[in-house]
């Protein structure tokens, strides 16, 4: 009853083309953003910021990056973590070696470095597709962390290749507490998500999807396939690079290149698949599912055992958590192979008619 678009007439194409054409959506998104900016810092504890919200935001951004490449442009990649590593190490080195460089500029330069590397490893996509391309991007995944450890210049000659991120200071204001870091990351992620949404509803986004859905037809329309794929690799890697920089600077503080391993790439790919391939919202839902659900499960299982007073063998809870987590992934993929974003969309369509069935 509340979610109705009847009576909201659009009299111009501008009104129809806006980001959220339905009034209720606009209100809801603004409310959510306001809550994240003002409400959350008032209620959340430091544990929430450092252990839950920060990884959620950082992985959302990386998932967004991979979703642009895999979901929108249709190029499967397993090199996400490698591109994040490039972003993190590049941002660290720009901070280290360029005196007085603003932190945000380092993030952007880190992203651009990742974009350059992404384009390089995207070159095979001009000839190969699908699983074979995934194998080619795997090369990036193995090569880049190895290179970052091998050439110790990248980590400023630290013994194990670990980089310790510099403090984040913008115009004399230090983003040092969990709340401040959270707000900085939130703003960056929100702005970049908006930019991604704008890209996918513009010419470049349509070109990506055209190449994904039917590349011959796309080329016949006059879309340059090579250029479109490489732009997708560049933009995607830029997002991953910035996510990597935030991962190092805002989330963990110090990272080693080996932390950006294949495991991380897979995690982000799962976030894309579970959230919804080819959906901006899905990137956030997927990241939320994979990062938040294990924590939630652990809390629930601990509470249940404490309440019932059953004594369990040590390690049981973490095992059970994995089992339930895996089962849930399978459940959601069977219920909706197109991910949580599609479930959300179906729910919205139902809500528009509710309480009537048709």
């Amino acid at each position, binding site marked *: 009853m509340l979610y109705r678009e009847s009576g909201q007439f659009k009299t111009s194409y501008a009104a129809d083309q806006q980001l959220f054409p339905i009034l209720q959506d606009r209100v809801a998104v603004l409310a959510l953003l306001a809550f994240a900016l003002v409400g959350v810092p008032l209620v959340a504890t430091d544990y929430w910021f450092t252990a839950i919200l920060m990884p959620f935001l950082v992985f959302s951004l990386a998932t967004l990056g991979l979703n642009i490449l895999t979901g929108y442009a249709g190029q499967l990649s397993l090199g996400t973590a490698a591109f994040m590593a490039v972003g993190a190490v590049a941002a660290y080195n720009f901070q280290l070696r360029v005196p007085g460089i603003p932190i945000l500029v380092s993030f952007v330069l880190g992203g651009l470095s990742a974009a350059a590397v992404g384009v390089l490893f995207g070159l095979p996509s001009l000839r190969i597709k699908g699983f074979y391309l995934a194998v080619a991007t795997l090369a990036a995944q193995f090569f880049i962390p190895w290179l970052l450890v091998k050439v110790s210049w990248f980590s400023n000659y630290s013994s194990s290749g670990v980089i310790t991120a510099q403090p984040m200071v913008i115009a004399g204001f230090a983003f040092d507490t969990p709340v401040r870091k959270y707000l900085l990351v939130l703003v960056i992620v929100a702005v970049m998500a908006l930019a991604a949404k704008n890209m996918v509803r*513009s010419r470049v986004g349509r070109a990506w999807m*055209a190449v994904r859905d039917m590349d011959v037809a796309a080329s016949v329309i006059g879309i340059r396939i090579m250029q479109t794929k490489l732009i997708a690799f560049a933009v995607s890697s830029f997002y991953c690079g910035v996510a990597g920089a935030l991962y190092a600077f805002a989330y963990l503080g110090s990272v080693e290149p080996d932390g950006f391993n294949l495991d991380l790439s897979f995690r982000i790919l799962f976030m894309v698949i579970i959230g919804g391939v080819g959906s901006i919202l899905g990137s956030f839902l997927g990241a939320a599912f994979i990062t938040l659900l294990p924590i939630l499960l652990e809390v629930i299982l601990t509470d249940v055992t404490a309440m019932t007073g059953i004594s369990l063998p040590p390690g049981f809870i973490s095992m059970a958590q994995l089992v339930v987590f895996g089962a849930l992934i399978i459940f959601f993929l069977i219920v909706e192979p197109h991910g949580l974003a599609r479930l959300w969309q179906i729910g919205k369509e139902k809500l528009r008619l509710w309480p009537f069935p048709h």
Partner: protein
Amino acid sequence: MRAEGLPMSMGTNEVHPHNPARRIGETVLSVENISLAFGGVKALTDISFDVRAREIRAIIGPNGAGKSSMLNCINGVYRPQEGVIRLDGQSFRRMDPHKAASMGIARTFQNIALFKGMSVLDNIMTGRNLKMSSNLLLQALYVGPNRREELEHREKVEHIIDFLQIESVRKTPVGRLPYGVQKRVELGRALAAEPRLLLLDEPMAGMNMEEKQDMCRFILDVNDEFGTTIVLIEHDMGVVMDISDRVVVLDYGKKIGDGTPDEVRGNQAVIDAYLGVAH
């Protein structure tokens, strides 16, 4: 060979039955001695024909005759081993899809080649890709020139949606639409590029009578209203004979007939190819 009693001159002063005011112009496209082979399979052998401005030129032939391959050569999807394609006085040894598109060639495909995950609106908007120019940063910010550009092109696309009478499904993902409507959307996407030369690969395949009639009407209207030159592959002989000005007949990759519908109808080689010959 020519059918008797039907002197059809296809000169520049030819009067078309559908629209007396319509004029067939000079040659805009000619293919000369095109040969295309895939390994040992000869798809096309030494094909030559021309297409004049504002005419409807049909290519017919039995299955596997090389009709689609011919279209694929014209817009650069395939690269013929021999021969030249002349477009607007420029000669091309090998056409390139992007070049063909920027010179005003658009096409539809035999098996619908729409972008399945996108809405009707986005599919047709994609057809205007070459007409848009704002850069990536402007698109990411969706401000100023990019926003204006999107709105401008949206309006053009809405004209096409009106023309094809698909207003009610503009926001529907094309994968969910029935076959006949998908064919229409594909025509819309080709029209969005405002082509001067439109290549249609079996636009009426698999349609029922009403859908065929609608599609014929759209094709004739495009030809009349926008003066678009049309090259058409079609199996429905009734349609071909009715709407086309001249017909090329291919069989086993060779040209066996070329002329007005009536000339082609009377051509012995064409009759043999379609009906078979007693040995």
